[in-house]
């Protein structure tokens, strides 16, 4: 079991800090499988979000892995895989 897990509320918080709150959608809704494009976040917003996650959690995310994440679920999965690597290492 991972000591640290990056959860949807963590992502909501970092998204807000990094790139602001979208007007069209309520981030508190069930957004796990909504596409970032629909949420109003572009690739630069994801890059800034990824960069903040890296800093806070002490992990490294490849640029491609972050920008390829189409939904919050995919983003969480990418981050949590790295966190698991960190725990294993």
């Amino acid at each position: 079991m991972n000591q640290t897990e990056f959860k949807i509320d963590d992502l909501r918080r970092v998204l807000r800090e990094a790139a602001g709150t979208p007007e069209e959608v309520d981030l508190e809704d069930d957004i796990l499988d909504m596409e970032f494009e629909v949420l109003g976040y572009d690739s630069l917003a994801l890059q800034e979000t990824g960069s903040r996650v890296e800093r806070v959690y002490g992990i490294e995310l490849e640029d491609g892995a972050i920008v390829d994440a189409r939904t919050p679920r995919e983003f969480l999965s990418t981050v949590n895989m790295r966190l698991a690597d960190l725990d294993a290492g």
Partner: protein
Amino acid sequence: MTGTVVVTGVGVTSPTGLGAADHWTATCQGRAAIDRVTRFDPERYPARLAGEVRGFVAEEHLPSRLIPQTDRMTRLALVAADWALADAGVSRGDLNEFDIGVVTASSSGGFEFGEGELRNLWSKGGQYVSAYQSYAWFYAVNTGQISIRHGLRGPSGVLVSDQAGGLDAIAQARRKIRKGAKLIVSGGVDASLCSWGWAALLTSGRLSVADDPDRAYLPFDARASGHVPGEGGALLILEDAASARERGVSGWYGEIAGYGATFDPRPGSDREPGLRNAVRLALRDARADPGEIDVVFADAAATPELDRAEAEAIAAVLGPRAVPVTAPKTMTGRLNSGAGPLDLVTALLAIRDGLVPPTANVAPDPGYPIDLVVGAPRRRAVRAALVLARGQGGFNSAVVVRAPEPGHARPPAVPAELADPP
């Protein structure tokens, strides 16, 4: 297409006011907005005064998504653009997105944003630099953000020629309209009142080091000793007159009738500076006789040499003391690329209301051959105005604006305080 380019909307974010109405009221009252810098601690710098835009809360005007990715100058520009488009009654779908462009001027880009990210880079490391640094400090970022926000995909660009840039952008917008664009959002908003921007401004050697706001920026005054910088500016909606009529617009502020730009001879040359020729070119372009100009909005550099060059250029073309000259920028400080567009808006409001706003704080040096309006605004029918702007490095630009044809004027809105003199 008629080739006639008219101004159908204006948006102002300036030290003298948020919105054209507040700006115009303060300007006519001669209410200067120059004060000690508050955006950073100016104590250790030789110059400590600026014209700041006070009370601007970006979050009240712009979506949250735009805040982390924008410098202050971009926020001020986005809001000015919103107001200008609303003033012109333009809404999405009125025109084809490829027929509307954005042409702004910039003198420094997003300095405050850049300063913060450079600080992050050197104090914390590269991973702390915002991804938005990739464009937030670009010269062209105001044009880009306005274009994205309103879905404007017509001819666009940015002009960089220091303080002359704002007028050069207006001229470029007019060119684009004459080549077929229907509407261009144009003008300039600059804001680099941060410690990095301040260090850059100081290199001009032209900043006033006075501490008394009423004695710091005194163009055409024997006490002139440099200028005070400011932030803000204006955006204007320029349209082909025929196209504006087609979309149902019946009244506008005026016409961008003429433009001239020159470059100064090399330093040390015995040839005269280029401003006089810029004025002549603008008049010729407007097919205007010198006698048609009812007011001049001066560049007002506030150094003896530059004030003399400007006064002599005005007197040489329009006649000594033949026409009122004013410098409302004594109330805002010099706004870099925002200066020319803000003066254009003020000139158009002077046309609308028949009122020439004063130059603040200045006791005119009688040695200059110009009739400088000081103290109170002067009532006078204004049919045509000449706006001048000079950029450091040799840029001279001049624009002539004309009153709308009869029946096409915007209704006057004289500030209540001035409508009924006590």
